[in-house]
């Protein structure tokens, strides 16, 4: 073990690079599904305006942890979350926090694109409407256009906004869903394997988009593709059997991981 890395509660923390503002700070997070513990004592500080990748084998807890960040685990009856998760210092598990408002601040994109059975326009306009973000039709139009542009989809759909969202290709649908997430002005965007159902070209478009979104958002992406984590993220967290094993700059995790389990997973060896 190199001396310059920090080990707390079994996690190896590489020294942070630069001084990125902390957006999401988790401390001692445990998650149980019924009496089975899915996450053990996860503590991590996730920087703003950066992409953080969660990697690890299936069932390692990376998606479970991702779902803690917008309280998606609330929707599972048997799930119990303890520990602290703060966004900009504010405890999100506090009783006073409305999960619906929280999920507007913390958007989520899933593995399979899930547009509403509505028009392209209404898919993007839905969030701003229910959250009352637009006072006029013009303002709503402008939000939809800006969001579609930020998601890199505007040029492809500008002339057919009234067509159903699910008439688009898979890659376009995923960008539509990203536009929908952006439309409510979130601060954090969670992505759970956003490219696993897409071909390499559509994947490249999403990755390019993720890189652009980094300017304005805190992005957290769960991916099974190590190459994708290496391409899009600045920080990488490796999870194994419900533990956060190692967290550090992506370049270091992929060239010089400190923990044997990280090394074995990344190089494709028997663990």
């Amino acid at each position, binding site marked *: 073990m*190199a001396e310059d890395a920090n080990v707390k509660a079994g996690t190896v923390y590489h020294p942070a690079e630069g001084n990125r503002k902390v957006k999401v700070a988790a401390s001692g997070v445990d998650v149980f599904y019924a009496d089975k513990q899915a996450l053990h004592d996860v503590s991590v500080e996730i920087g703003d305006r950066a992409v953080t990748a969660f990697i690890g084998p299936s069932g390692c807890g990376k998606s479970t942890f991702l779902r803690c960040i917008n309280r998606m685990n609330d929707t599972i009856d048997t799930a119990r979350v303890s520990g602290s998760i703060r966004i900009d210092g504010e405890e999100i598990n506090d009783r006073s926090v409305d999960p619906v408002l929280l999920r507007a601040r913390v958007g989520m994109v899933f593995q399979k694109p899930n547009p509403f059975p509505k028009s392209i326009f209404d898919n993007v306009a839905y969030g701003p409407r229910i959250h009352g973000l637009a006072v006029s039709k013009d303002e709503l139009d402008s939000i939809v256009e800006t969001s579609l542009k930020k998601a890199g989809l505007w040029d492809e759909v500008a002339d057919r906004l009234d067509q159903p969202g699910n008439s688009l290709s898979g890659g376009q649908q995923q960008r539509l869903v990203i536009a929908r997430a952006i439309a409510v002005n979130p601060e954090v965007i969670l992505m759970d394997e956003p490219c696993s159902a897409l071909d390499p070209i559509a994947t490249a478009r999403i990755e390019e988009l993720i890189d652009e979104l980094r300017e304005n958002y805190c992005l957290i992406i769960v991916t099974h593709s190590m*190459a994708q984590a*290496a391409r899009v993220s600045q920080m990488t967290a490796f999870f194994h059997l419900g533990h956060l094993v190692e967290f550090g700059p992506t370049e270091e995790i*992929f*060239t*010089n991981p400190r923990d044997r389990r990280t090394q*074995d997973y990344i*190089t*494709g060896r*028997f663990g």
Partner: protein
Amino acid sequence: MTTPVQGHHIVRAFSEELEQLTASVATMGGLAESLVSDALDAIAARDSDLALDVIQRDKRLDTLQRDIERQIIRLLALRQPLASDLRVCIAALKIAADLERIGDLAKNIARRTRELNEAEPLALSKSIERMGRLVQGHLHEVLDAYASGEIGGALGVWQRDDDVDEHYNTLFRELLVCMAEDPHIVGPGAHLLFIAKNLERVGDHATNIAEVVHYAVTGTELLADRPKGGSSGTP
């Protein structure tokens, strides 16, 4: 090359390809070391045939290097090695380049030896040979470190490169004095000077290899403030 990770890849062919790569670099290392050693023997024994043999065997080193480069390009393209595997690939690429240069330097020494053998023997040939054996020892140690993944030997060579530099500086001064005293030996003296310089360069390549081995094994770079010995102003 053995790194701290000993486990096998889930894709077995990947492990086999990395082992093959390491074996190729080791073969190349053995050949480069034998070229240096034989070039030194050729100086000591004034053996022009052995020197010619060194010149001819250098071609094999070039072929081996191209083969190693092909293996690495294939590994990078098809296996996308990461972490220690990536370091092993990059190390092989760099070490193969150093070994190829060592071969060229040995060849140049052999060429000059054939020229030297046309003239009267010089007393300083012995000092050259001593310096050469020191350099050869360094090369041997770093190649051992590469094969075993034990970085102790590599670190030792890295710290002791100034011994070679000191030998070279001493030889340089002695040769200048000899040539000033007797203009007839300027021709062979110049050859000896270049041979000494070539050996010093072989030492530098051995130091490079030590640094690469250290990086491949530990993932961290040796700091650049290696102890520098000897006087300045020597070419």
